[in-house]
């Protein structure tokens, strides 16, 4: 029978590769073939007629259909071979039984048997041959015949009728002689084999027959075991039997579900086995069940395989734990496979050096390293950071522990501390040899084995589980010298050499550890999970080793398509995930996808083997992580920037009623900068989702700054206190009197600063405009100044001099603070209000300052400031009027709007004279303007809340007028000396010589036009336009339309000149010299003097850079 099988194999080969065989066959059998075929056909017909008349017609029709599509039928047969339908299977069974009968009965009917044989391989799944063999014999024969004839028809057709084939449009070429030969030879071989087989079967007894049948079933793949001579194969158990062919059929025994007591499923199963053995021993009739199956996951049921349910019932008789009252339930055919299959678990092999996590107990979820594994008793020894509760241990030793409740707090994981153990008088043995570990360990309390500060813990393999690749910070705890790991990166500062070296060795060790974990997890994690599109990778295996690239995509089959970053390799290349490793270059933007820093994104600033140092953009901190825990920022899927509904930078109320801004979000905790903290001592709370009460909206909230100006969200403010004094920041959130601002250059809390609203000034408001000195004034001063101008005339004179403050200062003699001079704008504002300013309603462009470039409509106008409704943002901001440029269709600026005022004073409209480009004070001083503006005290109050109506009422009232008048006169006279303005007060020795370029508080630059005030404490600065040159702001030209501002000396700083600039020496012997900065040599500047003095002109001097200021000559 095995031979017959061989034949089949061969036959199949022929079928499969007819074309292939066609070519080179010997011509010997060619002649015999035609006859053979004919004969067979006849015989077939004969058999069909003889054996089964009633099937004849059916057969014929079958034949006909086969003729029509011979190739199809061939295919059918083949496919039937692999996956028999039920019907075919039935047929197969019958045929097989039939066949055996036949072989015994009619050895001589070779042909027929051969045909039988041929059909056999359609489907003979069942080796159940005892009962049904005889039953179906007759019927089977007919089918037999049919199938055979079908087959032969195929061949005949293929061989004989070329035209027919053409008709059908078959792609097969017409069969030529060679092929015919091949077929003939094939037939012949088969014929012979058949005879031999028949003889053998005849000779065989039942058992051998059984064996042979089995052999056949178990070796379905022919190709590999086929040999040319048609010799019998050895009993090879073929592993590749197609599982598909084993699917249950209606003829197979059925599965019955039997209800049993929960937890006793296995017992029932095993007891049934025992029962079978017992029955066998006592020679009682065996049970008629075939098998009993219990599934671990199926509670309360076992499956019993039997043909009928009464067989099941009978077998279960007398068994404990079986619910006999419940009838066995039939498992549907389709579900049979499912019920006896077990999902293959992902195999976890815990080896020494594996990283595991504890499943339970006080160490639950802790990382541990496997030291030793004993598969025999399923235990392992792990090295773990101990969580000793020394007090509890001491209590235990002294026997007090029983009386005390067990501590509920989980002790912290840290290295074993001998001192602490000694403090608690715990028994401690050092260097004791442990047999089970085969090593010397320290023993604490007789049970805990400690080595190098770590606990060596023996536990069952089931209590640990292999972990995902642990993150770097966890592994660091296991690196040598683990106690220093936490401040690993501070080491370098502490003791540079030692620290660096230790760090290096630690890093090496960690890298080694990392490799270990890599290897372990390589297979278990799918490529898709490990690699994301956009990740930078390096090839670590194969010919293309060390090739770098970027992941283009990850295919479903796990292959990773990489875009190589190589000048000669341009096509995307496929790789297996094992061949790749993530490799981010310094400078890449990455996101951490795993570990403690999960969610953080930042830039790779350092790479050492597998460890990358990342500078986080959200926290401004540096940390190191494994490369494999990183992903390209743009593509990383697990972006943690919210916790529940609370996202990063949201304002939220916490459970305790405090309000804060989320400054950092991690996996399940958010760090909230609350309103409890102050500017100096921020209060950051780590909050879980449960700690949040609700989300807050601060969009419509407002607060008042130090100058009582309105702050709203989005305003730009300048912080006026603490370390962050003078830092500009944008208001992110407002809650009551607290504001959260985002300040550039601030490191902690992601740049968010929490402060009281009074601690800052809003840009463009009162406070910032003149250096924020107003709050510095005492009420007394304020009142003094408010009261200062007694009449419009007074004011006029005072303003025109631009000296109000100084005047007051000098005359009063009591206000020595330089802040005093800042007084003037207030007065101006008081005077310079006009309801119907021509600017209102105009479309303007803001030219300078923080809102430079914005366009908007002027909604309100003060003498110096304008409220502009921005087009780009739904906000109204206050800006200096001189920062306004004409919008499209409007060239009106404040400066050009008031030529009359200048005219009146005899100054040209153009600031020909430096003095003409004077402070806005002058404009305000024109009688016309003054009158016009001064009409709205009420509005003024609203506008400038620092002033009370009471003070306004005091306008023009009693006042030390004499003092004022005198000083004015004095100053005026002084300044008017020689008909020209004095640009520098006498004896001025400050740095801000006229012509120096200075930087103002708002960042813009201007040219000092005039120095005045006491000791030159006030400067008139003409703002201008600057461009960026060599990376720094570089003053280009004066904005013609803009008026000079008066600012306090301390609110400006000199601009460091660049090479090629004109400079002025502001200090030392050469003070006042104007020169060209030829070269900068470190701290020294090489100057070439520009002077009208012929001797000096062109002289080269070297001056310390700190003594130089940039000089801008207006002409």
């Amino acid at each position, binding site marked *: 029978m095995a031979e017959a099988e061989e034949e089949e194999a061969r036959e199949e080969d022929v079928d499969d590769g007819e074309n292939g065989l066609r070519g080179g066959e010997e011509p010997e059998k060619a002649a015999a073939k035609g006859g053979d075929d004919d004969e067979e056909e006849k015989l077939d017909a004969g058999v069909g007629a003889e054996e089964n008349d009633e099937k004849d017609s059916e057969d014929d029709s079958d034949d006909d259909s086969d003729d029509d599509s011979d190739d199809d039928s061939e295919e059918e047969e083949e496919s039937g071979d692999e996956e028999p339908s039920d019907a075919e299977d039935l047929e197969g069974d019958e045929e097989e039984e039939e066949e055996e009968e036949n072989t015994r009965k009619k050895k001589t009917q070779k042909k027929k048997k051969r045909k039988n044989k041929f059909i056999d391989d359609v489907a003979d799944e069942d080796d159940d041959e005892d009962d049904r063999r005889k039953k179906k014999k007759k019927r089977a024969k007919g089918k037999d015949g049919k199938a055979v004839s079908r087959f032969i028809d195929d061949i005949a057709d293929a061989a004989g009728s070329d035209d027919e084939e053409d008709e059908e449009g078959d792609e097969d070429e017409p069969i030529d002689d060679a092929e015919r030969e091949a077929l003939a030879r094939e037939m012949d071989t088969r014929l012979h084999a058949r005879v031999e087989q028949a003889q053998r079967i005849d000779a065989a007894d039942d058992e051998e027959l059984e064996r042979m049948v089995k052999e056949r079933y178990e070796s379905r793949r022919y190709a590999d075991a086929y040999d040319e001579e048609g010799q019998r194969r050895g009993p090879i158990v073929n592993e590749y039997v197609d599982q598909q062919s084993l699917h249950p059929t209606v003829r197979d025994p059925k599965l019955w579900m039997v209800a049993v007591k929960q937890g006793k499923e*296995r017992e029932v199963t095993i007891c049934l086995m025992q029962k079978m053995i017992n029955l066998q021993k006592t020679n009682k009739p065996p049970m008629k069940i075939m098998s009993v199956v219990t*599934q671990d996951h199926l509670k309360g049921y076992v499956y019993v395989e039997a043909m009928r349910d009464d067989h099941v019932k009978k077998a279960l008789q007398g068994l404990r734990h079986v619910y006999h009252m419940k009838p066995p339930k039939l498992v549907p055919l389709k579900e049979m496979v499912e019920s006896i299959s077990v999902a293959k678990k992902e195999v976890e092999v815990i080896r020494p050096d594996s990283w595991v996590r504890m499943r339970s107990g006080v160490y639950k979820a802790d990382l541990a390293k496997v030291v030793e594994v004993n598969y025999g008793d399923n235990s392992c020894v792990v090295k773990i950071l101990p969580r000793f509760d020394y007090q509890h241990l001491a209590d235990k030793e002294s026997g007090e522990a029983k009386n005390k409740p067990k501590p509920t707090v989980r002790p912290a994981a840290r290295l074993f501390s001998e001192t602490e153990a000694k403090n608690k008088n715990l028994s401690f043995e050092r260097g004791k040899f442990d047999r089970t570990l085969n090593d010397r360990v320290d023993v604490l309390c007789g049970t805990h084995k400690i080595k190098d500060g770590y606990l060596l813990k023996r536990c069952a393999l089931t209590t640990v589980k292999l972990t995902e690749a642990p993150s770097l910070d966890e592994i660091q705890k296991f690196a040598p010298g683990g106690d220093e790991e936490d401040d690993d990166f501070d080491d370098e500062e502490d003791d540079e050499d030692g620290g660096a070296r230790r760090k290096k060795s630690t890093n090496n060790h960690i890298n080694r550890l990392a490799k270990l974990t890599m290897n372990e997890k390589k297979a278990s994690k799918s490529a898709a999970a490990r690699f994301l599109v956009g990740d930078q990778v390096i090839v670590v295996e194969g010919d293309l080793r060390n090739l770098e690239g970027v992941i283009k995509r990850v295919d479903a089959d796990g292959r990773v398509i990489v875009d190589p970053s190589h000048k000669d390799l341009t096509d995307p290349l496929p790789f297996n995930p094992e061949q790749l490793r993530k490799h981010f270059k310094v400078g890449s933007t990455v996101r951490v996808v795993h570990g403690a820093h999960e969610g953080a994104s930042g830039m790779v600033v350092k790479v050492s083997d597998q460890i990358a140092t990342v500078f986080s953009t959200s926290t401004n901190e540096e940390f190191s992580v494994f490369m494999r825990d990183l992903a390209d920022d743009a593509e990383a899927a697990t972006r943690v920037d919210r916790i529940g509904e609370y996202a990063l930078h949201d304002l939220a109320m916490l459970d305790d009623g405090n309000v804060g801004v989320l400054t950092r979000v991690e996996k399940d905790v958010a760090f909230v900068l609350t309103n409890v903290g102050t500017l100096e001592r921020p209060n950051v709370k780590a909050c879980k989702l449960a700690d949040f009460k609700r989300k807050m909206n601060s969009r419509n909230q407002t607060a008042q700054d130090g100058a009582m100006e309105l702050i709203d969200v989005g305003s730009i403010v300048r912080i006026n206190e603490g370390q962050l004094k003078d830092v500009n920041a944008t208001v992110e959130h407002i809650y009551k009197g607290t504001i959260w601002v985002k300040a550039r250059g601030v490191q902690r809390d992601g740049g968010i600063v929490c402060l009281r609203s009074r601690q800052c000034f809003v840009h463009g408001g009162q406070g910032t405009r003149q250096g924020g000195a107003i709050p510095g004034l005492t009420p007394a001063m304020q009142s003094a100044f408010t009261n200062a101008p007694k009449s419009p005339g007074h004011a006029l004179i005072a303003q025109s001099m631009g000296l109000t403050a100084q005047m007051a200062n000098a005359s009063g003699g009591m206000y020595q603070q330089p802040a005093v001079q800042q007084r003037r704008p207030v007065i101006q504002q008081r005077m310079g209000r006009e309801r119907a300013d021509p600017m209102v309603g105009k479309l303007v462009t803001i030219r300078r300052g923080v809102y430079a470039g914005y366009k908007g409509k002027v909604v309100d106008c003060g003498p110096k400031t304008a409220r502009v409704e921005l087009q780009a943002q739904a906000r109204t901001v206050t800006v200096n009027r001189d920062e306004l440029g004409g919008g499209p269709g409007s060239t009106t600026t404040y400066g050009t709007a008031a030529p009359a005022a200048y005219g009146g004073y005899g100054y040209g409209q153009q600031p020909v004279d430096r003095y003409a480009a004077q402070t806005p004070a002058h404009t305000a001083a024109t009688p016309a303007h003054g009158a016009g503006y001064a009409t709205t005290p009420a509005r003024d109050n609203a506008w400038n809340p620092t002033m009370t109506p009471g003070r306004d009422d005091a306008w023009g009232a009693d006042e030390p007028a004499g003092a004022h008048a005198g000083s004015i006169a004095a100053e005026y006279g002084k300044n008017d000396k020689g008909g020209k303005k004095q640009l520098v007060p006498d004896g001025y020795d400050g740095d801000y010589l006229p012509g120096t370029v200075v930087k103002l508080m708002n960042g813009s630059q201007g040219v000092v036009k005039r120095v005045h005030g006491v000791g030159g404490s006030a400067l008139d600065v003409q703002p201008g336009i600057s461009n960026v040159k060599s990376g720094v702001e570089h003053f280009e030209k004066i904005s013609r339309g803009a008026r000079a501002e008066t600012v306090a000396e301390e609110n400006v700083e000199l601009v460091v000149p660049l090479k090629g600039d004109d400079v002025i020496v502001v200090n030392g012997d050469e003070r006042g010299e104007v020169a060209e900065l030829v070269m900068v040599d470190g701290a020294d500047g090489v100057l070439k003097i520009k002077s009208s003095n012929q001797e000096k002109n062109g002289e080269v001097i070297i001056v310390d850079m700190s003594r130089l200021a940039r000089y801008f000559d207006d002409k």
Partner: protein
Amino acid sequence: MSPAAPPPQEFNKHTRACLRCKLVKTFDQVSRSRSTFSITFHPFDHYQFLTDGCENCDTLNLKNNTELVSQSTTNEYSGVISLIDPKASWASKWLRLGQSKPGCYALEIHSLKSTKI
């Protein structure tokens, strides 16, 4: 019918499956985990693999070879099938146990070790 392999004498604990043929039997090891210093045997003589070996895998010579038994058997298996009539059973065929002797077998073995044998 060929003689059956004796079923395991315990039902859940201390049973191991032959990595080669999945036959389930009891094999109780020296239980070291409980007491470190005194070697104790389980009170019952439950080490069928040691006394009888594996009925299907005579070539393995498991008898009286503790080391080999612990190597070539595993407790990481799930599901048990009692093959009463392996020849007739469809389940045995599906599980490729058709050649095995009647006895209790594991449905699936979850050990990587099986690949070695």
